[in-house]
């Protein structure tokens, strides 16, 4: 008893005697981000963004109009917008607003199908119908920008613009974050960050040289960044007898209906209360064990929210394992290792829109070609193609309270 009490004090000693249900610990995640290998020298050439690739495809005369005076191989910062307009014109990228002139109010209003409610939630079929009415190529038209627009570009249909993905640089380092997901040692496997062999992380091989992913995966940056804060993920441990060592705890992963708020330091506010998202597809349960304050779960399929600015695309992991260190101050730092389904990963890239991809120097076509080529999980027997890619994501979280629906109902 005394040992358990001291252990509890060591792991978040500010707990009051009434700090929630006994044996329950929950954490709200302020950021879930692609884990970075951190080895700066592993990418001698960074992957081109879509705009950078288009720039290289121009004739020398055309390129000179947009080139930096200091380094003609680079785009002049002030010329990025004109170059993007030229790219849009060249490839006939299209986008129309479903309502209200679209984001920024500068987009043509779409001709809408009869009976379509512009204030409702449009479906992919609606997008195709709108595309057909607005001069899109046959069978083209995807929802974009938080479903406010219908678009056709290298991000909605990368297969139509293969030249924008040519020469896309992938990661060829030897080290990558992750674990051995398949229990095999293959030639594609990495050495883990602490020397473990057989690490499966083909997603990092695909995008590990994309500037945006490398930067956002830096722990120093990631810890200060809130991602999907308006729809955060919560990890709940139940049946915790000893927060340092416990052979069996139940691990629930939920989507919260409340946003993470910042504390006085600008970090995630600890010990706040969160109601749960009613969408049960965003909930998973597995078991795990705690050794020396580190939680490791059994494999589980996860579907976790990813809502950030214009992106609303839940991440789906198959065969995922959570490994998390329960920190002395009551916070948590950990990782999700598993197979990220190509469909859900691509959906998040597609949501970026062409303009967003250009701004962040991401090549949608390059990413799409790379993940299709490097995918290594869950082969579709019908097509013979893999449908998921091994991946490693890291997260930060702080203590939280979950308001379960039955408790919320009784409280009301």
């Amino acid at each position, binding site marked *: 008893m005394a040992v358990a009490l001291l252990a509890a*004090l060591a792991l978040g*000693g*500010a*707990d*009051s*005697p*009434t*700090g*929630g249900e006994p044996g329950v610990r929950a954490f709200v995640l302020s950021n879930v981000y692609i884990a970075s290998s951190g080895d700066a020298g592993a990418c001698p050439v960074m992957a081109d963004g879509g705009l950078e690739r288009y720039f290289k495809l121009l004739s020398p005369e055309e390129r000179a109009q947009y080139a930096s005076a200091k380094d003609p191989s680079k785009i002049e910062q002030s010329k990025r917008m004109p170059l993007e307009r030229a790219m849009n014109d060249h490839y006939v990228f299209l986008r129309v607003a479903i309502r209200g002139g679209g984001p920024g109010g500068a987009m043509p209003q779409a001709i809408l199908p009869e009976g379509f409610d512009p204030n409702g939630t449009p479906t992919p079929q609606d997008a195709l119908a709108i595309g057909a009415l607005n001069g899109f190529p046959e069978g083209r038209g995807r929802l974009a920008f938080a479903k406010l627009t219908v678009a056709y570009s290298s991000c909605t249909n990368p297969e139509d613009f293969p030249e924008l993905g040519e020469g896309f640089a992938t990661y060829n380092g030897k080290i990558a974050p992750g674990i051995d997901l398949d229990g095999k040692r293959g030639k594609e496997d990495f050495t883990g960050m602490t020397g473990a062999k057989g690490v499966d992380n083909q997603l990092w091989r695909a995008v590990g040289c994309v500037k945006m992913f490398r930067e956002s995966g830096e722990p120093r940056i990631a810890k200060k960044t809130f991602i999907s804060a308006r729809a955060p993920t919560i990890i709940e441990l139940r049946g915790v007898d000893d927060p340092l060592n416990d052979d069996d705890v139940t691990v629930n992963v939920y989507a919260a209906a409340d946003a993470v708020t910042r*504390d*006085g*330091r600008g*970090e995630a*506010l*600890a*010990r*706040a*209360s969160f109601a749960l998202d009613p969408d049960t597809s965003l909930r998973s349960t597995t078991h795990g064990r705690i050794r020396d304050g580190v939680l490791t779960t059994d494999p589980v399929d996860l579907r976790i929210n990813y809502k950030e600015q214009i992106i609303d695309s839940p991440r789906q992991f198959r065969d995922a394992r959570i490994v998390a260190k329960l920190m002395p101050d009551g916070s948590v730092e950990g990782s999700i290792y598993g197979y990220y389904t190509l469909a859900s990963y691509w959906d998040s890239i597609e949501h970026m829109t062409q303009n967003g991809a250009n701004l962040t120097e991401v090549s949608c076509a390059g990413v799409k070609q790379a993940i299709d080529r490097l995918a290594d999980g869950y082969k579709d027997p019908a097509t013979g193609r893999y449908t998921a890619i091994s991946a490693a994501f890291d997260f930060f979280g702080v203590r939280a*309270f*979950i*308001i379960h629906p039955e*408790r*919320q109902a*009784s*409280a*009301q």
Partner: protein
Amino acid sequence: MKRFRRPTLKQALTALSLALAAGTAMIGAQAAWPDDEAGDPVMVRKLTEAQYRNAIADIFGPDIKVVGRFEPDLRVDGLLAVGASAVSVTPGGFEQYEAIARGIADQVTDDAHRARLVGCAPGPADRNGARCAAAFLSKTGFKLYRRPLTAAEIKQFTATTAASAKELGSFQAGLSAVLAGMLSSPDFLFRIDQPDKDGKAVDAWAKASRLSFLLWDTTPDAELLAAAASGKLDTPEGLAKQTDRLIASPRFKDGIRAFFTDMLQLDGIDNLSKDVLIFPAYTNSVADAMREQTLRTITYLLVDEDRDYRDLFTARKIAMTRLLGPIYDIPVAKEGWYIHEFPEGDPRTGLLTHASMLALHSHPGRTSPTLRGKAMRETLLCQQVPSPPANVNFAVVQDVNNPTLRTTRARLLAHLDDEQCSTCHKVTDPLGLGLEQFDGAGQFRTRENGELIDVTGAFEASGFDGAAQLGRLFAESSQANACLVRTAWKYARGREPHGADSRDLAMLGADFADKGHRMGALFRSIALDPDFYALVPGGAAQMAAAGATHKEDTP
């Protein structure tokens, strides 16, 4: 020790008159003063900021915004209500009043509100709007001044409206200027009591004000003014009827909130700051919620539930909202405010463990058993604790990283080696150390720098172990009980009791006990006590003399 001499009423009002004259000259209105025949005012109390805001909301509606900074209210003898009798407005403070008044007057007369609040305009039958102005200013002046305007006042205001309208180019602008002048007038900003015909008590209008500001913390409503006008308020039955009506109203909660805000000095939360690196869960919004929590808890227990005042120190029920969940380390399922109950045996029990009290009487980055103990002694027990001398060496106490003195208790004990300090610390610290399981933001903890916190101590010859037990001792303390009665009396009267008041206080205390220590009963007894309305023997002169001995800083 620094002292100040409170000005006599005449001096203060003369100064105000000059300030008002300067101010109103700019807006075309003139100061309004009681007619000579009404006699000298017997007592003057400035409206607190809260009372000002409440009055404006009641008279014009809650959609009229009161925008601007008020000069801070003055706390004397532990209460703003006593400070309000000190009657002081600086020239800067007057400018603030005037700016606020203009803002209100502009809103009242603007297109969005004119039809409802003014209700008339110049027309063929009232070409220059004189009748409209007279009707509006008479009606509104009655509410603002809490007495009927004299014929001379109405005539003067109406004439000034016409002159201002001509100068400013519109009737509404003229009306707005005069209304701003009325809002800047001492008759609105101060409760100026007049004697009744016999000169033994205040008149009926002043009775209505005393009653309303005591029980609702706002200006008298129409029914109360009507009772004053009809003379019913001058009869014991009429007074009792109005008192009971005000206490039975939901607005009695406003009066209780105002009283405890003053008594517990919860206005201090407005100026409270914490080191967010040490207390990241503390924000200004959280601080506001802490104060609201205490006030809601008090009104829930003492008004809604009509419970014994002493229960405040032992109640496990507390008002809660989601914003405070991280401070109290509890899940909060409900949106909005609700009553949370901590389980039996929880250290979070009673008023002493409210985050508002704990945070308010702490330093920005650490607790202070001394400040907490001092606050308990002064506000809850009505005891005087001297301020520390200027040359105290706080180095030992402030060094929270001292490797050998790891707890606040240990550091304070080391500090007590200084004999000069130990006398007062022996009075304050034992009580404050009982609350050490709550940090400077009011969050529970069991250890400080890894060391278990000792929360044992003694109060009134009884030992305690922790805040819950200390709260129980406060509930059983006759001193705490007597202090509440004394503070309520001071709050109502706006002054410290003198020797002659001791009998009155003793009777009030006995009556409070007989009636089960209920706040409604206490305020009813105060409101029905003829002395509440009686003129102080010797009149204003004695009161001014008494005020001259007040110390600026509580010793």
